[in-house]
């Protein structure tokens, strides 16, 4: 009998696929790898992207999809991803237009990063029981 997916596994699958698709399409919008205090970026509708930002999205997406296969891997990804995006959100709010002089961002990016972080940490917390305790039919 197939086991239910944990919240972390659903998080990894959905965000992994979305980030991978957005990263690939992002290269058709802006593939530049500029650096500095104001790296070049183009709007992917609401969100600012450039080559570095696209690479981060693709790598994150592939990692999410790979780790979605097991509850433990998915939970680790949800925690790590949530923490990283929490830091990125705070950094983005302070720095304003870029992260580490590489990734161009704007206000909508910050909202998205905050929601991704919150969802990741919530998925990690909500999957605690399902990973630590063996399941019964």
């Amino acid at each position, binding site marked *: 009998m197939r086991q239910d*997916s944990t*919240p972390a596994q659903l998080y990894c*699958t959905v965000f992994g696929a*979305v980030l991978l*698709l957005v990263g690939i399409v992002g290269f058709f919008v802006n593939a530049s790898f500029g650096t500095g205090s104001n790296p070049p970026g183009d709007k*992917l*509708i609401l*969100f600012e992207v450039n080559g570095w930002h696209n690479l981060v999205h693709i790598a994150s997406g592939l990692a999410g999809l790979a780790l979605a296969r097991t509850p433990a891997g998915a939970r680790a990804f949800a925690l790590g991803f949530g923490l990283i995006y929490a830091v990125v959100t705070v950094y983005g709010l302070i720095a304003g237009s870029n992260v580490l002089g590489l990734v161009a961002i704007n206000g909508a990016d910050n909202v998205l990063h905050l*929601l991704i972080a919150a969802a990741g940490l919530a998925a990690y917390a909500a999957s605690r029981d*399902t990973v630590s305790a063996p399941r019964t039919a």
Partner: protein
Amino acid sequence: MSVAAALGAGAPAPLRARSEPALLLASLAWSAGTVHAVAAVVHLEEWLLAAVFFAIVAVAQFAIGAWLWARPEPRALLFAGASSAALAVLWAVSRTVGLPFGPEHGHAEGVGVLDLVATGDQVLILAAVAALCIGSAHVVLHPILIRAALIAGMTGALLAGGHAH
């Protein structure tokens, strides 16, 4: 007499708490809430009241999602279905005859991908609750269907989002 009884259907069958169907249903509410959170930011400079409304809707949908996942009892399902239906009707009015108030009162707003995604999520919630009333929840709350809807909705919102007025 309840609406469900009037339609000849029973109350929605409760789902198992923290099960995959409950998680999928909750995810639809969280997805709609995410779109409304972004909409609140987008509306900040053009109509503050709308921004506040969208922020309240976003918070409510995050809370409803948590309720559906932790305790998917009939009361939670009916509340989720009714609120989703109300928001879908409000959206339909704003896109056809226009709202009777606000900066564009009486004028139909354009349809954007972001609002289509949120409305799609809400229609799926309503369909799932209706399916639970007639014992066919597995049709709507199918793991692949909901995953595909969430991925398509979020990707569409990011790639073709934007707000049409």
